[in-house]
């Protein structure tokens, strides 16, 4: 799974510009599944068909987009940018970036160096005060870059210590890697469910990919995989979850109670560690979207804890991914379906 995650983390796919990462997924899965396609909005949809008695279909879904930036203006030979998705603007200074212009261009995010500033000006620069420098003169910059070109941070996946790894876009390539690994490992299994692995676009903005793919597939139920916050320096267990305790199983208004209970029971039966993640309102994930698609789709949410979310140095523990995979495969083998309650008052 580490190798899968490495490939996916290194691929580029800011929201709205996901072609690169969807091609990587497509190549990785095309020999491993019964059908795979890229739909008209850009979702990648892979299918492993049921064998024997077919009970229906399930959609396992993870978003493939990442947060990024976009070119908005020029200031001489410097490039101004806006963010795609939620960033802490303090982390930009000194980051290496890649701009997808007429060619792939490497640059650095700059700001006026502090030794040129008076003390009272030494504050967090706003986005307007930051710029990207690709070392070219104004004429060349305008030849290769145009307004609207996507930008992402130039970093590569790396193992820190054993099963603890770092990289960009682990939100949510971590979940993409879990679904890829599941599809590869159930290739020859006889399952009662058609299993759709759906990699959605634009979760970080509007959840467009989740709404459209769920509407197209209309599965009997859906399991959304996303990330949650892990404990780290300055982030305690009052608002995050420790590493290596398994996936989080979410509960709350966005989540189907029956699915929640069955997932929890499956984990217990198979002695898979898990934690419960109460989400009192909107989950801020594709689960919020899928629950209300068409006439409603029973939806569950599993989460992998990651540290430093929405930075280029996200960190996670591989065990949490492996246990998420085990839980889902066990669930696909054992789950009997969601029954809609009908009360016939004339009976």
């Amino acid at each position, binding site marked *: 799974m580490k190798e899968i995650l490495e490939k996916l983390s290194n691929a580029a796919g800011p929201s709205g510009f996901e072609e690169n990462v969807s091609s990587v997924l497509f190549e990785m899965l095309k020999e491993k599944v019964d059908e795979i396609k890229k739909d008209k909005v850009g979702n990648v949809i892979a299918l492993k068909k049921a064998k024997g008695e077919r009970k229906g279909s399930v959609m396992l879904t993870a978003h493939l987009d990442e947060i990024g930036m976009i070119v908005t203006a020029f200031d001489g030979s410097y490039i101004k940018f806006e963010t795609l998705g939620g960033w802490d603007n303090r982390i930009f200074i000194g980051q290496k970036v890649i701009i997808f212009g007429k060619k792939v261009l490497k640059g*650095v995010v*700059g700001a006026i160096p502090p030794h040129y500033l008076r003390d009272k000006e030494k504050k967090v620069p706003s986005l307007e005060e930051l710029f990207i420098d690709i070392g070219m003169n104004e004429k060349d910059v305008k030849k290769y870059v145009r307004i609207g070109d996507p930008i992402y941070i130039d970093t590569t996946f790396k193992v820190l210590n054993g099963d603890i790894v770092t990289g960009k876009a682990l939100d949510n390539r971590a979940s993409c890697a879990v679904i890829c690994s599941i599809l590869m490992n159930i290739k020859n299994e006889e399952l009662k469910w058609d299993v759709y692995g759906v990699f959605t676009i634009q979760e970080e903005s509007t959840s467009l990919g989740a709404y459209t793919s769920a509407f197209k597939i209309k599965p009997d139920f859906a399991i959304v995989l996303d990330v949650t916050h892990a404990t780290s320096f300055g982030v305690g267990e009052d608002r995050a979850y420790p590493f290596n305790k398994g996936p989080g199983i979410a509960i709350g208004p966005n989540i189907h109670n029956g699915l929640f209970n069955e997932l929890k029971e499956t984990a217990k039966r198979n002695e898979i560690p898990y934690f419960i993640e109460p989400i009192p309102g909107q989950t801020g994930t594709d689960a919020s979207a899928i629950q209300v698609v068409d006439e409603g789709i029973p939806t569950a949410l599993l989460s992998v804890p990651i540290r430093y979310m929405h930075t280029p140095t996200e960190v996670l523990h591989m065990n949490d991914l492996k246990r998420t995979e085990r839980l889902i495969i066990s669930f696909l083998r054992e789950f009997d379906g969601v029954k809609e309650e009908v009360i016939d008052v004339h009976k």
Partner: protein
Amino acid sequence: MFINELSNINGVSGNEDEVRKFIIDKLKKLVDKFEIDSMGNLYAFKKGKKSGKKIMLAAHMDEVGFMVTGIEQSGDIRFRPVGGIEPLTCLSKRVIIGKNKISGVIGVKATHLNTIEEEKSVPKFESLRIDAGFSSKEEASSKVNLGDYIAFDTEYYEENGICTGKGFDDRAGCSILMDIAGMDFPYDTYLTFTVQEEVGLRGARIAGNRVFPDICIVVEGTGAGDFPSKRDIGSYPSLGSGPVITLLDRSLIVQKKLVDFLLNVAKDNRIPYQFKRPNIGATDAGRIHISKTGVPSMVLAVPVRYIHSPCCIMLKRDYNNTLKLIEKGIERIEEVI
């Protein structure tokens, strides 16, 4: 040009060993003798065509970085800067720790968990930690020691003459000294690679006394100031405008006859040049020129954007012009000694 290899080597002030080793390895066939003093300054000596006078060329091997100052029960690593680094440039960057080259990240908690006030405040080093994936103090202590040096984890990259990487201040200078090691010097010459420039020009103080040359040229990678127009902070030195000549900085006033000499050499060889913004920064020349009874010293530098950050930008064109100006200057150094 050795800037690629030199940039990728870690050599934070006080820990320049690997840089020195690399330079010795590459220069051993080109020079007559190496000396290393008690602080670690490296002197590559080359016999000149004539003796009686001595030339010193100096560049510093060290770069800014950090040091491990503590290990938490959680396994997180406390650290402090070595040399001048702003905390803002450190957020969410990858680093390499110690001789075992342990990878870590300077983590910044998710934006979702921050208040607006937090995101408007500049953090202090005391509030930052390095996460190297250790789960306990015991585990971290088995691989990381107090006092280990930490460098930014940045790989050199070059395309179309645009160079990006860490530590161009002053590996650019080291690389230029290495590039000219093969030339025939008019007088005995000491190519001097100093230590601890970034923590107070420490190595240069004893190097100047040891060599005590008749003339010294300090070669630097200096901060460019050509930033977007809206902020009126001036626009020089700028990338692409050639070697940067220092008139005066916080540590040195260059003799007018030496400045004139550099300008003449530049003009005679059609080499572009520019001046450093006065009164900013200090270099090893500030120490060397007050060695013993005094050493006439000048400073030439390659303009570099974003020095003291994880990623600098420099143009090969500026590097080559700086190299050429120094070569041509040395050929006629007799005019000023």
